[in-house]
């Protein structure tokens, strides 16, 4: 009897809480959001792009099999309502929700999933999204044109299908990425290349207009599968790459939210209103300076370690980044499941640095002629400038070459540098992230510092066949420790991404893989918004 009462009370309480929050939610209004990364979007056909600027808008138009659950920082099912994984972890059986419609009114069925995946695999030139599905059986053969049907994608009925993998890999970590989304075949075929500028998806918002170079406008899709959602009537993405202008537009209430750069961080933190409306997350990007082992001094581990000891990273983070970063230990960021909080950290120790330089035979130092970087504030040449006086103390002189992203990319890939400063994607899957440094990965595919270590490779190979996640992460952690000890890079920081918003904006979330990947389905604005009733 008593037990029954408690359960009832609990039920009432949850019901009350749920309805309470449901009542607080206000429907309607417009959100002025931003697309802050560089210039204009290139396309809203997410299969064809790999630019975050495109994903962050497109992910609210399109949907895939998984989405990122920001609250728990894991991928969760999106379009399918259920999933069964076979014992050998190689066959995934999905059952789609029965109530999903595309923006053109047609129901989403199994054929759309298979068609969309086939399109990714067969697209010429190859779709950037291909790497997220290349572990599916037949994907590679299909990609190379050896077969014409996707053998690993099996239709069972209109709502049920199977995906068969070549190896037991956790599919969710690949498929949550906004590049793998499901399209209505007829619209893609009807529009051809123009689909990229007139996208039709099944997400919470419908595409309305894209004023090239200025803004993208989306409106609420009434038949979105989540009942009663989204709350907003309209979303405008202002394309604003210029941080100074974005800051002013936010203060002028033209933007409802903004991504905060380092220089504005102290100011926003000190503001009594804005400081209460900021969300922070340890983003999965590692900022570092890569050292080219072909440059003779950098072939010596002691020199690389000396550089790590010689630079006060914490001070640079405090002064130049205004505390908007987490000091790095190894490669994997603090938000990674394989992060080792007790791992080795190179503390500022100029004496030790000098000693190591002497040991390596570079007592008199050397000149780094090609220290390349972009003008980025947090991981560009400004950091070199801050490093310079400290490196000078151990005899190392830097010659900075600043360039824009396109030129920089080409230089890194052709190993045409002594040092580069960059921000590398380091999440969310720890093994995949760490694998870029394996000996057999070439420079063009991401091993920019030509890291070679047999023991490291072995650990990662073991991790790939590990039974449990915990076991896998433990092995990756060990690999990261080797990487840190070898110091092929100067470990700088993990990004702390910060989003500030006005008090009338609710439900923005802390998205660790990329703060700008904001799912706006549950976001709402209250009546104090200047655009509370704008449609």
């Amino acid at each position: 009897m008593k037990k029954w009462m408690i359960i009832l009370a609990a039920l009432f309480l949850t019901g009350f809480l749920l309805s309470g929050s449901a009542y607080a939610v206000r429907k309607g209004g417009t959100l002025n959001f931003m697309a802050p990364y560089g210039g204009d979007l290139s396309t809203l056909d997410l299969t064809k792009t790999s630019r975050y600027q495109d994903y962050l808008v497109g992910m609210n138009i399109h949907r895939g099999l998984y989405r990122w659950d920001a609250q728990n920082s894991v991928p969760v099912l999106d379009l399918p309502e259920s999933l069964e994984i076979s014992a050998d972890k190689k066959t995934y059986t999905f059952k789609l929700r029965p109530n999903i419609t595309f923006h053109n009114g047609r129901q989403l069925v199994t054929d759309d999933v298979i068609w969309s995946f086939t399109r990714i695999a067969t697209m010429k030139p190859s779709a950037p999204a291909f790497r997220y599905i290349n572990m599916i059986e037949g994907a590679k053969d299909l990609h190379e044109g050896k077969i014409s049907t996707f053998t690993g994608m099996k239709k069972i009925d209109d709502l049920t299908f199977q995906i068969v993998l070549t190896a037991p890999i956790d599919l969710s970590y690949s498929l949550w990425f906004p590049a793998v989304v499901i399209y209505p075949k007829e619209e893609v075929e009807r529009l051809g290349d123009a689909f990229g500028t007139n996208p039709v998806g099944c997400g919470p918002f419908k595409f309305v207009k894209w004023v090239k170079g200025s803004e993208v406008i989306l409106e609420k899709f009434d038949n979105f599968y989540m009942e009663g959602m989204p709350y907003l009537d309209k979303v405008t993405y202002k394309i604003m790459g210029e941080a100074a202008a974005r800051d002013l537009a936010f203060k002028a209430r033209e933007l409802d939210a903004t991504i905060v750069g380092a220089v504005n961080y102290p100011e926003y933190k000190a503001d009594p209103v804005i400081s209460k409306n900021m969300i922070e997350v340890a983003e999965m990007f590692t900022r570092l300076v890569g050292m080219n082992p072909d440059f003779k001094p950098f072939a010596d581990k002691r020199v690389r370690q000396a550089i790590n000891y010689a630079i006060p990273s914490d001070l640079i983070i405090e002064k130049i980044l205004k505390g908007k970063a987490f000091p790095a230990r190894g490669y994997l960021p603090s938000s990674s499941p394989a992060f080792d909080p007790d791992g080795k950290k190179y503390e500022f120790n100029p004496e030790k640095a000098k000693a190591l330089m002497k040991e390596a035979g570079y007592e008199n130092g050397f000149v780094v002629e090609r220290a390349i970087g972009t003008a980025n504030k947090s991981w560009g040449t400004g950091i070199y400038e801050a490093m310079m006086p400290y490196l000078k103390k151990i005899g190392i002189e830097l010659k900075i070459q600043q360039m824009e992203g396109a030129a920089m990319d080409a230089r890194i890939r052709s190993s045409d540098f002594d040092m580069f400063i960059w921000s590398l994607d380091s999440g969310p899957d720890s093994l995949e992230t760490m694998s870029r440094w394996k000996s057999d990965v070439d420079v063009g595919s991401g091993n920019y510092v030509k890291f070679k270590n047999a023991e490291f490779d072995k650990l990662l190979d073991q991790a790939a066949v590990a039974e449990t996640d915990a076991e896998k992460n433990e092995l990756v952690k060990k690999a990261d420790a080797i990487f840190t000890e070898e110091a092929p890079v100067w470990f700088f920081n993990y990004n702390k991404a910060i989003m500030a918003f006005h008090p009338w904006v609710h439900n923005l979330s802390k998205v660790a893989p990329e703060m700008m990947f904001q799912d706006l389905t549950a976001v709402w604005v209250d009546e104090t918004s200047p655009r509370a009733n704008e449609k």
Partner: protein
Amino acid sequence: MFAYAVRRLLQFIPTILAISLIIFILLNVLPGNAALMSRGEQDTGTLTTEDIEEMKRDWGLDKPLWYRYAVYLKGLVTGDLGKSFLRREPVNQLLKERIWPTLKLAMTAMLIAICLGVPLGFYSALRQGRIADTITMIGAVSGVSMPQFWLGLLLMYFVSVKFQLLPPQGYGEGSIKHIVLPAFTLGIGYVGLLARTTRAAVVEILSLDYIRTARAKGLSELLINQKHVMRNALILILTTAGLQFGDLMAQTVIVEKLFSWPGLGSLLVDSIFQRDIPVTQGCILVIISTFLLVNLIVDLLYGVIDPRIRASYK
């Protein structure tokens, strides 16, 4: 006059051909390539070397330079500017959307510059060599002396953030509210220029013999200004405005980036940084053609203003 216009139009052809060659060579030797830039600034490590080769094949970048130029020329003749590497859209389409906002911005800016610059220059010339002249010129040249992005940020701060008078950025369907700040930022730099040109023109004309005579005859200063000076000065001012229009179109590069204005300038910068060569070529071609056209119009306007010049259109 019509025949003259046609002849001038025909003269554009070699100019445009030569420019297209220069630009083509310049852009095609740029380091970096669109395949890499399609990945965006933050590394996602999505492309393998084979992918890049494949994209290059797809875009025809594996062919020799002369062949690519021939293909480009062939397209140019038929009015087809090719297809964007990254956006996979016809360049014509991209340009079509962007021309009007830029023209609107550039024309408004030029209007602001003329409305402020010409009276200032006129006043300055009449006070030539005196303190009032210097002060006026300092005022006029001030605009030119400030880098545009700096001026733009200051305007945004005071007008939009402090006093909340105008929106700080965006196109807003091209409303007047939205165009004021960018046009002002762009135009103010040309106030000084037009003021200087006007001043120089008026100073020169005032020193001409027949004006001196008129002055000696006791015609009121005002009347002299109106009758003789204005018409002569107008030609020079028009020429300057015309010559500067191309420069102004190019300056939209900065202003459009700052204000998220959906024009050619921001497209040009994006496409150069993304190494989207067909789009860059298209943008430059349009900016140059506009410049040439505007100057042709200016030339034809001379005839309207001054019948003596019309006689020379043969």
